[in-house]
């Protein structure tokens, strides 16, 4: 089915192969749930009149990106997606920071699209057509330099949309500003389309390239993962924290893709399969638990009115169901068994190990294994981050009046969150069937499966059967509870928490800043915290009246990469602007010079 496009000989066509179907499934399922949530959440969010329409257009645009059959349709859908999400991010445009963020977001995605256009046109130059089918049918025979250029342009273009370090700057600024259901969709699904583009480019349209392509993706993936989670740990706005976690999870997905790329360049189909399966499986998992967590954050924001963790606390008593769903989401994102996060991270570990073992030269073997170390660091930091996020927000005593007065989220919101929570559990326990589905959809991503068991199945290689492990875990937990009863019943008496003899006040509790302090100090060279402490003495005395403490994380990328570029651009523009100095004589001189140059050229 195709429609005549605006340029001669151009056809707007659609294509639906396994990969498109997989991403379409992810888009559809998550947007269905977020729509349900949006309806429930409407009473909090003062959307402008057209926001419902924009939201529907956003979902349609994302679907169109995934099923686009040629470069022009793809770009149409791609940029419409950015434009619409820009509109949605601008929902409460009263605040100047929101406008600034939305503008930065749109300009960065527009610049990314320019890179993608460059890559597409280079491909169109050699194949002579814009239709994707032509690009895959004749494996595009590019000479290496052009192929590398196309891959580089695609990586930058799609990487920016995915939120890969160092192109991630828009993500932690745009997501917290958007309303909950929009940021759930943006973070859960939209950034995955960047991954979709990258997978299409590197596995469908380009012939296998040199191994260092994969190495670069692996390095960028590892950096995104570690830095993403580190910055997340330092944030105390729940949504910014979740946004940085999107950067981290994109890093994990890129690790899978990197493994697949190296495998493809060295002709190891098994490695490609496990790498790609891990990446795609994590795409689905991340979509589920990230959307869940953003909805949770939205529910908290609706109930308490703030997303600042330092002013939450004790919400588990007032919002038990939200707390349960948020807990499941947190456990899933931290990669804890038996949930889906663990299953895909396990697969990513296995893919790194498999590549490490089967790589030809030693030095290509070393990189994936070290990336494995980075992934382990990321997983551990993620646990720390979500213990902080969940613990400080939900447990112990409420730190502010609003938190104390919080009320449970609406029914629809809870249903939406419950669906996704169950999805996390189902995808975890049902990891094997999910992976076999992915294998059928994308043949080149058929993970090594033997019935319920994940793993290569060769002697000594790792194996994982999530349901069985979960069963054993549950039964042993039960035994641990029942066995001591042999020694007779015991009673539990309720008393106050021990606080060195003082009745416990919310002030005694550990704040998020304090919780993250050890890690902040341990990684201070990377994270570079900035701290200013102001002490106000009572007039004329040495006695301290009040202490003012403010700490934030130096926006390294923003200051040294983005503001540097834009600053120089604007400064350069100011210099050039002086050329239009208003005097007719100068303008005549310009015309004169132009005539002289033209005559010289024409001689």
């Amino acid at each position, binding site marked *: 089915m195709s429609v005549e496009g605006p340029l001669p000989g151009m056809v707007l066509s659609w294509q639906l192969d396994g990969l498109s179907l997989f991403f379409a499934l992810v888009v559809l399922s998550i947007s269905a749930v977020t729509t349900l949530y949006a309806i429930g959440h409407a009473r909090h969010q003062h959307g402008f009149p057209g926001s419902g329409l924009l939201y529907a257009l956003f979902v349609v645009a994302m679907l169109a990106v995934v099923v686009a059959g040629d470069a022009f349709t793809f770009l149409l859908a791609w940029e419409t997606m950015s434009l619409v999400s820009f509109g949605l991010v601008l929902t409460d445009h009263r605040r100047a920071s929101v406008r600034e963020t939305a503008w930065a977001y749109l300009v960065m995605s527009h610049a990314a699209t320019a890179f993608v256009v460059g890559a597409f046109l280079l491909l169109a130059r050699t194949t002579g057509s814009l239709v994707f089918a032509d690009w895959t049918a004749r494996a595009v025979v590019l000479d290496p330099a052009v192929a590398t250029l196309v891959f580089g342009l695609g990586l930058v273009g799609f990487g920016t949309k995915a939120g890969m370090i160092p192109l991630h700057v828009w993500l932690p600024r745009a997501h917290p500003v958007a309303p909950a259901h929009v940021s759930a969709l943006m973070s859960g699904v939209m950034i995955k389309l960047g991954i979709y583009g990258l997978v299409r480019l590197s596995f469908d349209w380009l012939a296998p390239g040199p191994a260092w392509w994969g190495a670069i993706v692996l390095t960028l993936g590892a950096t995104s993962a570690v830095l993403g989670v580190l910055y997340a740990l330092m944030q105390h706005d729940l949504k910014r924290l979740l946004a940085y976690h999107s950067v981290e999870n994109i890093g994990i997905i890129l690790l899978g893709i990197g493994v697949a790329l190296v495998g493809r360049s060295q002709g190891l189909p098994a490695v490609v399969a496990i790498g790609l399966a891990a990446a795609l499986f994590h795409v689905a998992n991340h979509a589920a638990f990230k959307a869940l967590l953003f909805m949770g954050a939205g529910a908290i924001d609706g109930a308490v009115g703030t997303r600042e963790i330092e002013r939450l606390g004790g919400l588990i008593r007032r919002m038990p169901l939200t707390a349960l769903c948020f807990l499941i989401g947190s456990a899933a994102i931290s990669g804890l068994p038996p949930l889906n996060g663990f299953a895909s991270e396990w697969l990513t570990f296995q893919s790194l190990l498999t590549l490490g073992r089967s790589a030809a030269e030693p030095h290509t073997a070393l990189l994936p294994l070290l990336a494995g170390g980075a992934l382990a660091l990321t997983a551990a930091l993620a646990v720390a981050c979500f213990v902080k996020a969940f613990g400080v927000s939900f447990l112990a005593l409420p730190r502010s009046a609003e938190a104390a007065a919080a009320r449970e989220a609406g029914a629809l919101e809870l249903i939406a969150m419950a669906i996704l929570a169950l999805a996390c559990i189902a995808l975890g326990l049902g990891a094997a069937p999910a992976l076999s589905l992915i294998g059928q959809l994308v043949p080149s991503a058929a993970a090594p499966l033997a019935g319920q068991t994940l793993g290569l199945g060769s002697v000594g290689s790792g194996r994982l059967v999530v349901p069985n492990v979960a069963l054993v875990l549950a039964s042993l937990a039960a035994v641990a509870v029942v066995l001591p009863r042999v020694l007779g019943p015991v009673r539990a008496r309720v008393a106050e928490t021990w606080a060195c003899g003082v009745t416990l006040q919310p002030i005694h509790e550990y704040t998020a800043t304090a919780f993250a302090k050890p890690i902040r100090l341990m990684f201070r060279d990377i994270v570079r915290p900035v701290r200013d402490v102001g002490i106000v003495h009572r007039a004329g005395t040495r006695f301290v009246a009040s202490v003012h403490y403010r700490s934030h994380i130096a926006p390294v990328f923003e200051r040294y990469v983005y503001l540097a570029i834009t600053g120089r651009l604007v400064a350069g523009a100011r210099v050039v602007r002086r050329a239009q100095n208003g005097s007719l004589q100068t303008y005549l001189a310009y015309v004169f010079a132009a005539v002289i140059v*033209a005559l010289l050229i024409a001689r």
Partner: protein
Amino acid sequence: MSLAPLLVLVPLVAAATCAVAASRAAAVSAMAASLTFVVGSIVAFSSFAGPPEHALYGLIYVDALSGLVVLIIAVVAAIASLYAVAYVGNAVRAEEIAPSGVGWFYVWIQLSIAAMFAVPLMNNLGLMWVAIEATTLTTALLVAFFRRRHSLEAAWKYLMLGAVGLGFALFGLVLTYYAASHALGEAAAALDWDQLRANAGALDGALMRVAFALVLIGFGTKAGLAPMHTWLPDAHGEAPTPVSVLLSGALLNCALYAILRFHLLAAGALGASFSSDLLLGLGVISIVVAVPFVLVQHDLKRLLAYSSVEHMGIVALAVGIGGPLGLFAAGFHMFNHSVGKTLLFVAAGALGQRYGTLRLSRLRGAFEVAPVPALGLVIGTLAITGAPPFAPFASEFGIAQAGFAGRPAALAGAVVLLAGSVLVFGGMLFHVLSVVLRTPPRRVHAASFPFAAGFVGLPLGVLLVMGIWLPPPIRDAFIAVAGVLEVVR
């Protein structure tokens, strides 16, 4: 008898009646514009379909390319005249224009429309030059219509630079005439475009190189190509909005039309590379020069003016790249830019009248003050800066695709196009957002803007539809235009 001569006649008659019946000049001008719109469309679409036609004893010659320019002028003139009714009414109420001057305003408007229609229709290159000179003269006084110091300054520079440019163009024309008379014999036909185009091969090479160089710089000044563009932001910024619309939407294209005619002659005589490379070079320079002025700008209309410089550069780049796709996209982009820029200037004009100023720092909260023009401004900016799904993206994509598939210079041009459009997108959006959002000022002038939805909705609708699907007649039109512009490489 073809309708072409009517295109010049109707505005002239209207100008005369406006001069006489000054009180009802607005209605006369609006009617004349609608009439020319209808006639212009008929002439244009007949030129796209059939072979080039002659009229008025060979004086008038209409091929597909001139048909496109006629169509553009018809559309832009109609919008400008219709909008002028509301604009001038508001201006008079705000004492910016003396009631006595209203009649003269419409006289000059219709005269300039007549002159603009004459440019693409004239077969004789000399008369074409005369028509372009006429457009300059008629619009010069319009630019200075507001009796403010800035308008006078803008008009003075506009006139001086325009006259100098056309002086050099005339010099080039004389050399072409010499080469033509040398090749075709002494007859008056030596300056007729169709004859010249037919046997351009016989023209002397060395002469045509110098002639094309002079013509390119000369008419380039009128088309606003850098570095001769310096008058453009002053003129478009200070002129009353309907005049800015005419200048930006139609007049630049007339000058570009003249360049394209000489480009075809030079290509015939010297082979395509010389003139294409010059056009491509000027196009790239225009895009590069426009960027800094868009990034740092303090006036809304000047911002739109620099965007016009960039888009004229893009069209020149497209013709320079050449090839069936490149030329198709060039014609397509000419049309898109005119429609989009007309919308933007109308919106800017409406806002300007509501705020009483066009300084970006004082334009705030336009969504609340004037929602329809504000929406038109934002979506128009997104369209004009080449964001899909609007038509300018399709044409710029076509140009880039042709560039990437073309010679190394074309590839470099396409890269500059992509980079330039991103920077301009960022710059313009930043300014427009600061205009549209934020909290509005307390005091705002009252200014009527009738059929606002029509003025904003229609062009946007056209740009949106053509961004996704081109109706067959329009597609054939652009193919025909590409056919005319086709230059055997």
